[in-house]
């Protein structure tokens, strides 16, 4: 290929007046910073899968305070902050609908030249990916307010797809209740469960609602298997508990090393994907199939 040299805009009248507030240097730096953030997301999201029992506790928490107290919520907020998505907080909640806010959102700084519009695509996509890939909850995510659009704070609305929320939220005891059987649990737990099922519109006045009846019709025909594994915050918690238990640095360091090595051994036995599940599936499909025609036929079948 012939070297095309520099594009014309760099060779003629380069460095003319900026068209808006953001300078060339600022924009170049901002693009690099956004690339670094996206690299963090690509590296870390595939290793942050959360088991259903934790997501279930998150889904069943019925007030903002209860949600904030769940390990999943704390992990989610720390995780996003470590990645560079700012100090996110849940500010509003209704079952299957969440509004998160990010004060001083660092993502806004990636667009020095843009104003009077919402810009936080990176946060919107990250929230969608976290819920979809790490929690297995289908959803839609929309930025509803943005600092760049003149609002005080950036706000993101997450709406869960009910069918996917139900699949994860309902444990065997919930399904027994919906099927008209009393599960082997104490009265208080039963009351809590009935309350949660009522909040989620599956029960109405103690009876199966129309939604509940349709869901059970669906669920009795669609068996889903729950995978059991450790939550991604387990190692961090173990390390901090070791630090609390040991009075000397040496003792704590030795115990921590042992824990980390054990964790690495587990990871070798069951390697975590370094790419998203979707990508991995596509790569496998691409490798397995001999011809493109065959592949297309298979894809058509799979759709």
């Amino acid at each position, binding site marked *: 290929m012939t070297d095309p040299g520099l594009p014309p805009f760099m060779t003629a009248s380069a460095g*003319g007046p*900026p068209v808006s507030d953001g*300078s060339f240097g600022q924009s170049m730096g901002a693009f690099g910073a956004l690339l670094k953030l996206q690299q963090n997301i*690509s590296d870390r999201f595939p290793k942050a899968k959360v088991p259903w029992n934790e997501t279930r506790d998150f889904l069943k928490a019925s007030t903002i305070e209860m949600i904030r107290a769940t390990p999943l919520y704390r992990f989610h907020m720390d995780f996003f902050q470590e990645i560079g998505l700012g100090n996110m907080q849940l500010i509003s909640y209704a079952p299957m609908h969440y509004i998160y806010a990010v004060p001083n959102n660092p993502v806004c700084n990636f*667009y020095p030249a843009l104003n009077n*519009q919402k810009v936080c695509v990176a946060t919107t996509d990250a929230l969608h990916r976290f819920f979809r890939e790490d929690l297995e909850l289908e959803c839609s995510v929309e930025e509803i307010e943005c600092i760049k659009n003149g609002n005080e704070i950036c706000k993101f609305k997450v709406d869960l797809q*009910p069918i996917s929320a139900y699949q994860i939220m309902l444990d065997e005891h919930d399904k027994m209740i919906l099927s008209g059987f009393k599960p082997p649990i104490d009265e208080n737990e039963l009351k809590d469960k009935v309350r949660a099922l009522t909040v989620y519109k599956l029960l109405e006045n103690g009876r199966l609602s129309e939604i509940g009846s349709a869901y059970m019709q669906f669920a009795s*025909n*669609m068996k889903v298997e729950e995978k059991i594994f450790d939550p991604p915050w387990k190692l961090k918690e173990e390390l901090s508990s070791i630090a609390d238990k040991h009075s000397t640095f040496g003792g704590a360091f030795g115990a921590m090393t042992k824990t980390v090595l054990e964790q690495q051994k587990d990871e070798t036995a069951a390697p975590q994907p370094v790419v998203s599940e979707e990508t991995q599936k596509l790569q496998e499909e691409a490798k397995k199939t001999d011809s493109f025609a065959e*592949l297309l036929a298979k894809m058509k079948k799979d759709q």
Partner: protein
Amino acid sequence: MITTGFSHMAQEQGIAKVDLTYIYKAVMMGNSLYSDNWEKGVLYLTNLNLWFSEGGGWITIPLKNISMVGREVADPIRVKAQRTIGTSHVLIIDYLQPSSVVEGAAASATALLAGNEAMINTLKAYLQPMCGTPPKKQSLSDIDKKLLYMLSTGVNDPQKLIFFIGVDNDTLANSFKSLREQNMCDTSGALTEEGQKQIMEMM
């Protein structure tokens, strides 16, 4: 209106330079990609244009001619990119360009950009606000599949389907139309033999 990048040269400011693989004008029909002419090259993003190195020169897509950035990439396209160029991370850019048939008219065209995941997502996150796409994300590709599952279990009341799948009326209607066109179900929502077969395979 269609313009070229050259008319704004004095104001043009570079934002990023990336190495990637692209098809400037892809031939696509529905979920299928018929082009194979991926080019390895350099892309400059400026406040006005996308500049693609091609052969010994440059071609542009003015940002003001871009109608959509980042529409959902169907699996067959991602798989084809994976097989051809070794990555499934593709950004679709729909744009208008001067029609070669009617003077003064514009024709729609599609460019595909491919590269590593972080770079493609960065381009998307940068270009969407620049081209006026609001930050919103909904997974649409699985809606057909979810609808087929629901129909297969006999749940076919539109209001319940709208609630369960969490979509609006139009999206559900489109999805239903798509299943009908693929001969997966009849007008009442009952699965055809093809639809039953599909469900068995998905399970």
